[in-house]
């Protein structure tokens, strides 16, 4: 199915390196990582704790800076952007979903979803319609006026997803989005992401160490010790089969199966 899409690269990562620490005591979190994500792809990044997957996501999402290498999103090299430009870039091109939903406690769901739009100074009438639309798509219209503490974990994550989607970002970054959810809520969220990807052609980059979550994607990159170990394409196989293939790779990578749920 993916092969039928026009292969415009949305994200191009080339020779990315990230080094922590000073002389004599360096940790190479990312070591010469290169890959490409095309428009409309749903890509998973898997790896054990400390493999560098979150560092990768942080660098791609411009929250952390790379030591060397380039990251192009929509053709723009984000490693060379100034701080002020980066904020604007994050606002306009990226949407974030985190492990803990990271909703603002003091704001209602509606306000949380609207936040990226108000920051971008969209006019209030448009904000209202866009929030309603995205809420309807993620079936959270009924909780729009609730505060985060009044919602279930799954609802919170879907509100967070709605916040990520409301600006129509070029790419959605999801960092262990199911990590804090029970299995039913996790499935609901993953199905929503899958649907967004299929129906709205949203590009999603999801970091996870959960093989089940990864099986919803169309391609999985495996990272070990700061390098891309291998990658797996789903092709036309169904999700169950893809899951089995993922488990095989995980087992091969060194008994990391214990890490998967």
């Amino acid at each position, binding site marked *: 199915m993916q092969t039928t899409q026009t292969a415009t690269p949305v994200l191009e990562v080339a020779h990315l390196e990230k080094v922590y620490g000073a002389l004599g005591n360096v940790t190479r979190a990312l070591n010469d990582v290169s890959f490409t994500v095309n428009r409309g792809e749903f890509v998973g990044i898997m790896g054990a*704790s*400390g493999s560098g997957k*979150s*560092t990768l996501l*942080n660098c791609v*999402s411009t*929250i*952390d800076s790379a030591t060397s290498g380039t990251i192009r999103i929509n053709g723009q090299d984000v490693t060379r952007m100034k*701080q*002020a430009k980066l*904020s*604007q*870039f*994050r*606002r*306009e091109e*990226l949407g*974030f979903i*985190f*492990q*803990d939903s*990271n*909703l*603002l*406690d*003091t*704001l209602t769901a509606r*306000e949380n979803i*609207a*936040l*990226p*739009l*108000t*920051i*971008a*100074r969209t*006019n*209030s009438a448009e*904000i*209202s319609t866009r929030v309603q639309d995205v809420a309807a798509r993620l079936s959270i219209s009924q909780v729009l006026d609730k*505060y*985060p*503490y009044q919602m279930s974990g799954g609802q*919170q994550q879907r509100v967070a997803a709605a*916040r990520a989607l409301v600006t129509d970002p070029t790419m959605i970054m999801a*960092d*262990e989005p199911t990590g804090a959810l029970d299995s039913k809520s996790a499935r609901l969220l993953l199905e929503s992401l899958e649907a967004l990807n299929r129906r709205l052609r949203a590009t999603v980059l999801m970091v996870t160490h959960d093989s089940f979550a990864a099986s919803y994607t169309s391609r999985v990159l495996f990272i070990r010790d700061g390098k891309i170990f291998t990658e797996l394409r789903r092709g036309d196989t169904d999700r169950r089969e893809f899951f089995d293939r993922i488990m095989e790779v995980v087992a091969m990578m060194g008994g990391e199966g214990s890490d998967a749920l």
Partner: protein
Amino acid sequence: MLCKLAWGNVRRAGRDYLVYLLTLTLGVTVFYAFNTVSMQVDIAGIKEEGLSELMGSMLGYLTYFLAGVMAFLMVYANNFIMKRRKKEFGLYQVLGMGRGRVATIMALETVIVSVGAFVAGIVLGVGLSQLMTFFTASLFKTQIANFHFFFSVHAFNLTLACMLAMFVLTLLLNLRAVRRTKLIELMGAERRNESIKTRNPWIAIAIFAVGAVLVGVAYYRLLRDGFPLTATDTKLQEAMNQFGITTAMVTVGTFALFWGLSGMLIKLLQGLRSVYWRGLNMFTVRQLAAKVNTVCFSMGVIAMILFLAITSVTCGMSIANVMNENLERYNPVDVSQTYVYYTPETLDYYKEYVNPSEADRMVLADATVDLYAAWHGERKSADNNDETGKKVNIADVAGEHVQIDSYLSYPLGGSGPSVAAGEMCKAMGEKLPKVLEGSNADDMGLFVTPASQYNKLRQMMGEEPVSIGRDQYVLTCDMGGELGDLYTKYMAGGHTLTLGGHELKPATDKSDKDTAAIANSGLGSNPGTVVVADELLSQLNLQPYASNLLVNYKRGMDVAEADELIKYTMLDNLLVDGKEPGSWGVFMTRSELYTQAAQMNGMISYLAIYIGFVLVVACAAILSIQQLSNVADGSRSYRVLAQIGCDDRQIRHSVMAQQAVFFLFPLAVGLAHSFVALKVIIELVSTFGNMSIGGTVGLTCAIFLAAYGGYFLVTYLMSTGMVRAAIATRYSE
């Protein structure tokens, strides 16, 4: 090892400790510096007996009270630090450190911070006290003859005692906190998805509206009724009750305002859709609302404290200013002595209560008596001596002198004044000055004085005499302000007065205030006098009220020496044909009043600055700590904002807006209250003289605002630092 850990902790948690340290240091500085005032008085060379002791003991007692305020503040600040560090203390315990050792670490930290603040505070305090000496000298209007560096052991000990007490209190509370908290709570102190105490916005708006109405009505009532200071006995209770109601209204109203504030803000801004849904406004308002709900009570308290501080400082210093500014007018001569005659109203009272043993010889006065002769001792011998046994005769001291007789405006045996301010107001269609409302000053009416005496005083003061014809009058009043204006207006308007059936026209077009004093006094002696021609007065046969003898010392005589000598002149019982028509009243030397005024001025200024400063700093510190704690709690939110593409500038603006509301709203409410209260106070004081808010008051307020603003600035800068740190924290791995 524990010491090392504690020291490391203090250094690392420096930012948390900064406000705590700053406030404690300021406290020590101010405590020390103000408790050296008595020593400064000595150094400034003010040789007033008992002054330094009086100032010392008053400021000392005040220090205990203010130490209480500071202790409350310190406990509050300390709680904030402990809350922030629960997890750390939990970690120590998880790692197997006993509670006792955790407590020791904490105690050591408290010691380090307290000792640091104490040393810094004392050093600053010693410096400040040297500077203050010059201020003290100028307050008491002296020059420093012999300045030298000084250190007050007394002030040091007092400050140390207060700090020790505070330290022990904080320590006990900290230990209790460690002992009582459960490990699981300590570790999980970083909460997620905090539940928000929301209030029904409509109820909040209603409460806010009620608060606004209460405050408004209280303002109206205060402006209408004034302070219950001038009411007479019968009306006093009633007035006090009314004032109590007003006070209760403004207090309840203030708290209601803060309680409803958040709901009000939300509804107001949500109404303005294009404002609410723009930038971080929505976030700012929600954040404010959530926090205001938890701190509305302390904001109310702060507003009230700021109100009290501003009002009492401004008011106290202004009254002192009025006294100082008008001192020359109030004290026309070197020394004055009053003699008050018995009237039908007072005679029985004197006979029964004041001096029953001599009731037989007390009689109604039907004429004034010559005071100089009585004081001079010609009628009877004066037999008191100074230490050397030297007898002093008033004639040895007195140079020029004049007696001013004040009569009531009705004839002997009559009752009720024929000239009274109330009637004059009615004639002009004016409102009676507030100070006279319901007071018995108006029942008594104006005094009447012969022109010859008035003109003699003018001559003594180097002024031309005023010619007053048989059908003319001049009004005099040394109190200035509203009363003086009233009299001037009356004369300028050409209004006539009727005295004993004679209609009198004004002799000039304005009342006299500069040569109007009839005795030396601190706040004026003449509330209103009609000066008439002598021949008219003798015809009217008026009831004598009082006579004042105003004396200047002999030319070339040393004032201090004369002041000393005049103590040994004797006032004989003044008997006219064996009968006593009145009793001796106040004796006042000009120098004594000048000294008193200067002392009062110094005293009020110091009390006002001391109390005001500590209260303002305490309020600002509480606000600051609350805000820092808010930012610390909200660090996750700021991180999220940064991640979804909010730039630094927007976040800083939001922080600034939130903190501005917290700092400025209580200040605004406090200022509004003060403004209304001061308006009433100024009106009241302006009866005595033109009250000016300026000079020292301006400087004091500037210092307060600088302190308050300084805390605001420090808080804001620290907050942006915390926000920056929160944003930079990597959110996983």
